[in-house]
């Protein structure tokens, strides 16, 4: 868990060095059956603006469905999509960088960036604000 200074929202960052070329990692991130193999069943298309769902088995009170929209596709380096589930919206960004040994993969799940907040519909905007306040409240508790 890290703090993003520019927005004050929190992010999850996972980084991994992989002994595979970037193009291969890119395919695993962007081809439907390959995505399903490691992440979830999906109807992903590598097109900005494409809306898709990620589906897994329902757990507890969660229906197992994540609503997504492709935000950025820059083969073979950057893939980004929104991730909405249980009323919470965040952004997933994969960065694929070549290294002498293969690829450095970085996955960031972050709160909605402040410069995009104005584009979000009112209800979601309210929920993001609420979450920011909530985190501040919890930090003080």
């Amino acid at each position, binding site marked *: *868990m890290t703090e993003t200074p520019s927005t004050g929202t*929190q*992010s*999850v960052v*996972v980084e*991994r060095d*992989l002994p*595979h*070329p970037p193009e*291969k*990692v890119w*395919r*695993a991130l962007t081809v439907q059956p*390959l995505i399903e*193999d*490691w*992440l979830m069943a999906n109807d992903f298309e590598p097109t900005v603006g494409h809306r898709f769902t990620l589906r897994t088995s329902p*757990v*507890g*009170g*969660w229906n197992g469905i994540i609503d997504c929209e492709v935000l950025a596709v820059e083969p073979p380096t950057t893939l980004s999509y929104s991730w909405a589930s*249980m*009323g*919470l919206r965040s952004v997933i960004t994969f960065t694929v960088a070549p290294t002498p040994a293969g690829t450095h*993969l970085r*996955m960031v*799940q972050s709160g909605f960036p402040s410069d995009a907040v104005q584009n979000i519909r009112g*209800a979601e905007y*309210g*929920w993001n604000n*609420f979450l920011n*306040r*909530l*985190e501040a*409240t*919890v*930090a003080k*508790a």
Partner: protein
Amino acid sequence: MTEPDLLFRVLGDPTRRALFQRLARGGEHTVHALTAGAGVSQPAVSKHLAVLKAAGLVRDRRAGRETHYSAEPGALAPLADWMTLYGAFWEGRIDRLEDLLKRMDQ
């Protein structure tokens, strides 16, 4: 301790979230006062408050014929862990991605 998924479910409803936000700004409020501006009927507000109370998000105090509600911000503590939970989720999925890459052709 209330489970995060219950809190998400309870606060996923916009009317309940608005009621909780109003209470979270501080002080005690009656059902009557909370109904004004809620956009739903008083029985609906009472029902939402009961759900919030069951989740430990608000407390109530009976005074005469009125019930006064106030927020219980400590109840939100489990949500602080949701990013931690996502961290574990992604570590596990990237492990599976590594496994897939070993099985893939170049």
